């Protein structure tokens, strides 16, 4: 296996892919959004319980490659309990990592996604769950799509 590849499919990604966290539909959700990547066929739905400005609970469901599923899974663990503004900052951080390949200074699971940078065609996979989440936050009924988004 090439080192690029093992970078990409690091332990963290494989782990989230095999044992996704927060998978399935939470019954208490008051926000739902759906994302798809028509070119790949990847799909991701995000279920959100927003209490005031706080993400009280979150789950996802969908199908797609290891990267898209692991990223959605990790996303749910990251934003749960955060305020909307904090969650958006986490997205910016994540976006920066996958598009530049810069590893963050503090050690974190998100760092695993720095490897995506070497596979530009896969960046859309890594951001799919995040896009669905951001749409749910905005309460935007249009399905999020990774077509023609800057990433």
């Amino acid at each position, binding site marked *: 296996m090439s080192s690029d590849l093992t970078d990409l499919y690091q332990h963290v990604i494989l782990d989230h892919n095999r044992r996704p966290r927060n998978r399935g539909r939470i019954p208490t959700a008051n926000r739902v959004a759906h994302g798809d990547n028509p070119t790949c*066929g990847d799909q991701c739905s995000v279920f959100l319980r927003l209490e005031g400005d706080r993400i009280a609970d979150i789950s996802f469901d969908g*199908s797609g490659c290891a990267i898209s599923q692991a990223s959605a899974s990790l996303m749910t663990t990251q934003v749960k309990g955060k305020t909307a503004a904090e969650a958006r900052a986490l997205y910016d951080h994540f976006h920066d990592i996958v598009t530049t390949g810069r590893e963050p200074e503090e050690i974190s699971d998100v760092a695993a996604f720095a490897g995506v940078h070497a596979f530009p065609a896969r960046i859309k996979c890594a951001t799919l769950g995040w896009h669905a989440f951001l749409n749910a936050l905005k309460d935007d009924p249009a399905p999020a799509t990774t077509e023609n988004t800057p990433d």
Partner: protein
Amino acid sequence: MNSWKNIRDDFPILNQEANGHPLVYLDNAATTQKPRAVIDALSRFYERDNANVHRGLHTLSMRATAGYEGARARVAAFVNAAAPEEIVFTRGTTESINLVAASWGGANLKPGDVILLTEMEHHSNLVPWQLVAKRTGATLRFVPVNGDEGLLDLPSLDRLLTPEVKVFAFTHVSNTLGTINPAAALCARARNAGVVTVVDAAQSIGHMPVDVRAMDCDFLAFSGHKMAGVTGIGALYGRRALLDAMPPWQGGGGMIAHVDFLESRWKPAPERFEAGTPNFGDAVALGAACDYLDGLGRAEIQRHGAALGRRAYEVLSGIPGIRLLGPRGERAALVSFSFADVHAHDVVTFADQDGIALRGGHHCNQPLMKKLGLTGTTRASFFVYNTEKEIEVLAASLRRTVKFFRG
């Protein structure tokens, strides 16, 4: 006869590495590579003969016109059309089918009519019919596929061919399943029912003899880029009487007999359907692609592809947890498969790291995928330059990949 012996030397692109491994190009159903003879025909045209065709009386224009119309005659011969006028040049299969659906369909379909398709159609032989159905009020009906084996449910065909059916459009070879449909038999049954036939030959044209008169179809659509030709050119074969009765689709220079400010009259086919400056450069290269394939011998190409398809099915069936699609016996030069626990895109990325070019996804076959309970498959597809050795390389890579994911 070209030589099969050093055939890989005919294709400059094959002589390279991908990710540090010799390139193993197994994405031929998406597009084939081009032999030197085709690339050179294209350059030569622009270096010596280029000028706009028709209406041109100077030396270069007459040469370019002869090249373009010569390519039309060459393509007509390649599919054994009765006359060059039965060949309309298009961008490819998709445009050819859109032309038939919009022009023939727009003029001949009405509410209550039925367009018969099959469940294994590529989006390019489905969406154009959805669009014309919406416009005309016709409805769609589908010949079922019998599950993973990927065969059409032929007994149901007689039941489906009711008097409301006006057109039956089906693929000759499935790009996802590797199924080879019995095109001549399907056309015969449709014809008995008075139904016009449209054959999507995208996946057969470069891989086996395709003879429109033996098949006795009304229309046949194909792409040059899937038969060793370049992108941007393909053709629609149409029975002359049908073509001549069809209204124009696009308007513009070259397709008119007479233009007034408010009204115009059209030329007969094929010009009627070739508005604007045609893609004569790529058409000339398509003629060269016909020569190249006939040089290898199309029966021989078919044997080679069928052998690789069968071999790949056998070898890959030994990989734990693999689900193989399409017929077990006679099959086209491709194999399509999935794993419950490894997504197709991850398979493709891993294979690419070993220099192997595969395609993963729905292969423009979303409704079929849904029916089979799949979100996508991985596909390895072969052409004249592929070898049994490459199938071994593929199998080894796939084994490593599933092992990695299963830990």
